[in-house]
């Protein structure tokens, strides 16, 4: 189910107001900006379309979806990934959230600690010497990391 939050809204609406017409209802989404919302709507539509085209063939659906996702990633700016994640989370759009988390994971996978701290807005809060110890213990995991 896509856009669960919206569906919830409709369900609530129907319970309260029997005569309301779905097509004219305006749904307030205060926490989502227009740009990420537009992308999510496009993503959703594309997903449903691909699913309909390949009704029986699950593998085809997955393949086409993957191709679309690859292309989408090229167009989306990295900064927008965070907004998209927040939007998908708010709208309770599981598939999109899953996809964007995957994208962030593969983006940061081979990056340095400093990069990751910057990306997530974190600071080192270790006691003196603790970080050094960790770095030494897992020294090999620092090999071959992308340069910042």
């Amino acid at each position, binding site marked *: 189910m896509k856009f669960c939050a919206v569906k919830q809204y409709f369900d609530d609406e129907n319970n309260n107001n029997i005569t309301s017409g779905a097509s004219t209802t305006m749904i307030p989404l205060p926490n989502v900006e227009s740009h990420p919302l537009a992308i999510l709507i496009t993503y959703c539509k594309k997903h449903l379309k691909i699913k309909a085209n390949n009704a029986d063939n699950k593998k085809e659906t997955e393949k086409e979806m993957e191709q679309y996702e690859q292309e989408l990633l090229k167009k989306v700016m990295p900064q927008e990934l965070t907004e998209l994640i927040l939007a998908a989370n708010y709208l309770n759009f599981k598939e999109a959230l899953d996809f964007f988390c995957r994208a962030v994971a593969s983006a940061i*996978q081979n990056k340095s600690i400093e990069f990751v701290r910057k990306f997530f807005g974190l600071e080192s*809060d*270790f006691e003196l010497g603790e970080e050094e110890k960790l770095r030494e213990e*897992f020294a090999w995991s620092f090999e071959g990391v992308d340069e910042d």
Partner: protein
Amino acid sequence: MENPRIFSQNIPKDIVHDVLKRLPVKSLQRFKSVCETWCSLISSSEFAKARYDRANEPNNNMTLWRCGCIEQREDINSGVFSAWLNIIDYNGFMLEAKSLDSFIVGRETPEILGSCNNLLLVYCCFYLYLWNPSSGTHDMFELDYDSTDYSCGVLMCGLGYDSSSDDYKAVLVSHTESPPGSPNNDYYTLESFSISTYSFRTNTLKEIDDNEFPYNFDSDTQGVTLNGAPHWVLRREEYNTEVNYNSIAMVLVYFDPAKEHFYELPLPCMLDKHYEFELGVLGGCLSLTCDDYDPSGSHFETWVMKKYGVEESWEKLFVIPYFEEHLRPLCFTKNGDVLMEANRKKIVIYNLLNNSKRTVIPNIESNYCGFGRCVYNVDSMVLPYDEQRLNLSPHNDELAMNTESEEFDGSLMSTRSQQSDGKRQKRENKCKNKMRSLSTFARFNIFRRGLLQFSTSFWKSNKRRKNNGRI
């Protein structure tokens, strides 16, 4: 990515978790140093469980994997030996123990020489067995030998599956050696090679006239089966006339059971100075483990070949600081810990994210001669067959749906597996007689690790090749 935008501080924690649990071990180990919160998160057991839940998606067959380990127990009062397969499942705990005594004869500790799909190749006292631990059915093959010859030999075995003929085949490569004290020196001298395959479907032994086996191996060379083919790491020795010694190169070799031929695979070029490798299959990929030294001490590294046959796809998967003399990773448990054999004596589980370990089976070394041989992945998926029939269909999602057409005619198998006590007693006596007729020297050598006693007239129709190399 340049200029990453900073996440606003309201990012829900569980989204950060969601991103983190998709990362490989190497990244997670590194990111422990990001901040205190991440460090405790990554080391926590809830996180391990979350990684598992994500990994255990419908098409992941983790629940079907088992790890089997032979143990020989002696009853102190009666002196009777019993052989058991201790089975560990993907949770990392011992599930059960299955007895081998219903089909094994002889006092030797059985050894697992190979495994393929849900079958094990077991050797004990001159017999090779193909055993399905889940259903208990088995097939056997008697290794013939001549008791008068006391030269000892080295045998390398592997179990494979030929999908073109729906046949499980054991490949047996042996070379005989003359014992020390012979004119040459203190070392064993390589005498000759012999290669055969045994088809469990037709129950026939066939010698392979394979002149292209320019390799050598030691008595403890252990292989793994991947994609139905047994793989080993072998030595290729080339006699260099200029400098008058053998140069040694390690090679990854596999046996194609359909073509009945040996082929090579590329080793990672970064490991070309290493000579001792442990082979394994991790996450469906061939893995190599070796030890290495760096300024901080020695450690074990495990590499996997992510794309089968592609040299560039070799990747260092993880590093474990030295804590035992010998480590052989066997498989991953459900939350990403590594199940491994340590020092050829015990089975431990190692947590890569916090470097902690737990012993699952403390001591698998038999207290009698011989070795409670090691541990293998055993896929124990039980298909809905009549228990009397030996299940020879490979574990495969597609095949699982077409089991009707793939069933092997197990009638021959069921006769053997239900053999009467009389037959078994006969086998038992035959085995005892064989053991008695061995010379003292030979009897001593039979208990040397991995060595099987057999003669130069071992194979029925043999072709000898002289190998001028020295071990």
